[in-house]
């Protein structure tokens, strides 16, 4: 038995949002009488951080601390329409809708503050800490809370805003495939290092080095979590997972996690990530949504690394020990391609 090391590369781009548009998202923002803000959505937080990202976007846009913003979502009676959390559309579509709603609410808030301070709303700025100042005269100030109280009880004004983001549905040419698909793309490149056991056919991934371009990391911790977890999922797809191991034959389909193989959390390999940020012009603060795409480059990178290690091209996923061993057998032994 011997272990053969190999490395493989792959790079990809990934379209953000429902491909042909026609997928609106709405958001409503209003202030409470004590100057906190509610963002009302019907987008689903799958654990990916929908609520966190929209909360940060709302806070940034209104100009208040993130602690003063709450996100209420996933109730069809209170939340306005949203197409759903899929197609990497959450951050992009819902984020844009939240920006629009938050801008409108901010406008009303500044008007209310202007009335209290007896200045023009255009002369006001927020400090991000819950205060509204007259530009160039930091002494003339009012808190967001005082502004909200004044708007509610003295001025009779609702500090609120409505937002929607919609890229209208577009057509596809039947003969040429001409279309106006999604508006922005995320990018990634990965290098996978692994070793292959030429006796058992088992592949062990040793390390991943990667660069992911995400427009802007709206929340760097959540980006990190997505990228590490998503890359792990890509490795799992490459090496282990399928509901039909002998596709297209339907036999031997797994029915539980004893049969459906996935590596455990303890097998998450070391992953050194570089995050690049090239903001997309139509994305909220440029952010593109890293969730879906981060798994994709791992599949081919693993396949390319296996070839590099033992000279076996596994063009059919998953790359099971059986396929690796059969390939080695046909080749008359492992053929390391150098590296």
């Amino acid at each position, binding site marked *: 038995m011997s272990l053969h090391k190999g490395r493989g590369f*792959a790079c990809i781009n990934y379209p953000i949002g429902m491909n042909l548009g026609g997928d609106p998202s709405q958001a409503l923002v209003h202030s409470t009488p004590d100057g906190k803000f509610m963002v009302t959505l019907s987008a689903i937080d799958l654990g990916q951080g929908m609520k966190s990202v929209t909360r940060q976007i709302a806070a940034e846009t209104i100009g208040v601390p993130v602690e003063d913003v709450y996100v209420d979502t996933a109730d069809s009676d209170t939340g306005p329409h949203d197409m759903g959390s899929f197609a990497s559309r959450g951050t992009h579509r819902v984020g844009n809708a939240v920006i629009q709603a938050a801008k409108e609410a901010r406008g009303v808030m500044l008007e209310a503050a202007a009335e209290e301070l007896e200045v023009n709303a255009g002369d006001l700025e927020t400090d991000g800490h819950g205060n509204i100042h007259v530009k160039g005269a930091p002494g003339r100030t009012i808190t967001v809370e005082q502004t909200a109280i004044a708007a509610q009880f003295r001025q009779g004004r609702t500090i609120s805003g409505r937002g929607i983001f919609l890229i209208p549905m577009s*057509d596809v040419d039947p003969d040429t495939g001409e279309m106006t698909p999604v508006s922005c793309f995320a990018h990634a490149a990965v290098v996978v290092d692994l070793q292959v056991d030429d006796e058992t056919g088992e592949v062990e991934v040793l390390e991943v080095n990667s660069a992911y371009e995400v427009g802007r990391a709206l929340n760097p911790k959540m980006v990190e979590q997505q990228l590490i977890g998503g890359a792990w999922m890509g490795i799992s797809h490459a090496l282990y997972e399928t509901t039909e191991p002998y596709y297209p034959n339907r036999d031997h389909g797994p029915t539980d996690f004893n049969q459906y193989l996935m590596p455990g959390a303890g097998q998450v390999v070391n992953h050194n990530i570089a995050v690049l940020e090239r903001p997309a012009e139509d994305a909220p603060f440029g952010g593109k949504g890293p969730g879906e795409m981060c798994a994709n480059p791992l599949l081919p990178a693993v396949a390319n690394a296996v070839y590099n290690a033992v000279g076996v091209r596994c063009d059919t996923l998953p790359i099971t020990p059986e396929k690796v061993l059969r390939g080695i057998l046909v080749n008359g032994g492992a053929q390391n391609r150098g590296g």
Partner: protein
Amino acid sequence: MSSIEFRKDLFADERDDALNEIGKPTIRQDILGHVTGRSPYFDDHLFDGLLHLRCVRSPHHHARIRAINTRAAQSMPGVVRIIMPQDVPNNLNTLLALIGFGKDDEALLQGNKVAYQGEAIVAVVAETELQARNACNAIQVDYDVLPHVLDVEEALLPNAPVVNETYPNNTFDYHELYDHQKLRFGDTQKAFAEADHIVEGQYQMSPIEQAPTETCGAIAAPETNDRYVCYTSTQALFFSLGTTAKLLDMPSSRMHFIGGTVGGGFGGKVDSLHEPLAVLGARLTGRPVKYSYDRAEEMQVGAPRGAERWRIKDGLLSDGRIIARQFTGFFDSGAYTRLSSYAIIKGTGHLPGPYTIPNVSSNVYCVYTNRTPATAMRGFGITGVDFSIECHMDKVAETVGMNPIELRILNAYRDGDMKAHRRTAKNCALIECAQVAAQKANWSIEPQYAAMSSLQGGGAERAQIPQTVIDDVGKIGARKHNAIETDPATNGTISSKPSSTVTPVHATQAMGDSVAPVSNSAPVANVIAATSPAAMNVPAVPATHGQTPPPQTFTQSATSPPAGAPSSQAPRPSPAPPVVSTDAPKPVEPYRPQQPFSRGVKRPGASPFVSGTRRR
């Protein structure tokens, strides 16, 4: 240990980093509920008198249903209601009807002909899950087993069994014209003839389970205001609401859908099969009904990422520039459409990957087979073709003896390039990602590749739409009569269409992909120049290429396979503290019974069956 760095030095002039909240590692508001196990999921909404729904499922890949006998089951203990296919008010739907894409082709409960193992036929609503299971086992379905087809290319043969009556050719109908989606850009056949090497390959994705910890499900209950509340694990609240309203022929305003904490989605929770049956069960029984998959159903009946088969043929010059790329793709949709037809549109818009190739053609088929329908999953429509493209790129690199990273950088798309779907590329960053990943992995690339940029070298000639050869092979139904080549046709006519036939659309706030220049909006005969015609859009080759051996870190085979030979050498075996009281799923809060499990709530709108949630 894993590590992360933020390369703020790159694209710094395109970013304003002076922001207050964006870019901060803010902790999620609902973290305390998650880490203490108190965030409520759909399944935590325990209603007094909750009934359980289970389905009788087909044991066959393909069979006509002669008769369904429920007599024995009806009198079994705990059985409250048996729901037959005819009890579903509007028993035919397709998911993307909500955006007007495709024809209704799938029944919620199938009473005529089952087309995959596990297809639901009859639903039983009983007091306990066990009683529902037992009653399902007692229902006798008399089948007339039919021949089935499981392979995508066999399903396209003239004599193949018809899987889905709505699409009798076993393919989704594109534009009421073709049995596949075409992409045509330039003249791939001509470019193949001019290429120094041809590299071909075939790639096969496997069906993959989304594998959420929480299986799909919903709990519905009648409320006292003539409405139904539905707690669901859906990824798309209004998608599920709209689908339920259509199948049950009931105004959506009569339903109150509440989602929220989801135990993993990954695309597997958009199909909206549970909400309609749960609400229907509640409507027919007047009691709360829960319907969820068990793990076996989640894995074998729940829709997976569909398998895809891709064939790629590249024509390349010996310096590594790819001058033509042809795709033939087969998406295994399973028995019904769900989302596969749309995935193909998305996939087609993605071709030929993140590279600028002057001649691209593609035929992609959405094929019906007698297996579990496929649906969305992380990377929807892209994962499979990216696997294929990137494996293929390594074969191309080996064929011309190039460092695979350098090959990609050489062919990478750049700002201003024309994409095959005829829109201009912008905001590109593939080259930079490749450079940074190589650097992190100590995989050396030559200085000229390290110096390349997505911002430079694009556009100009590379922004042109070439004269394009089109064909009308593969009209809907033509394959029924004789087997037709599935690859893009080898002959066609020069397109007489203007280069931009699809009206570009604008977003409400910002613009989408920028539109192709319309300068050649009439067919221009000399778009392809006389000299090295097919390669004209390719960037100049870096001067030193060819003399420099690939770096030691990745030694390439010195001998290239002869032109035209497939390169495949091995056989293809088959800062603020979290606020506790702000969790989103508030809607259950307002009503708190003083006596648990008491019935008869008087408050308008409240369910008479609410009895609190688990874990309180």
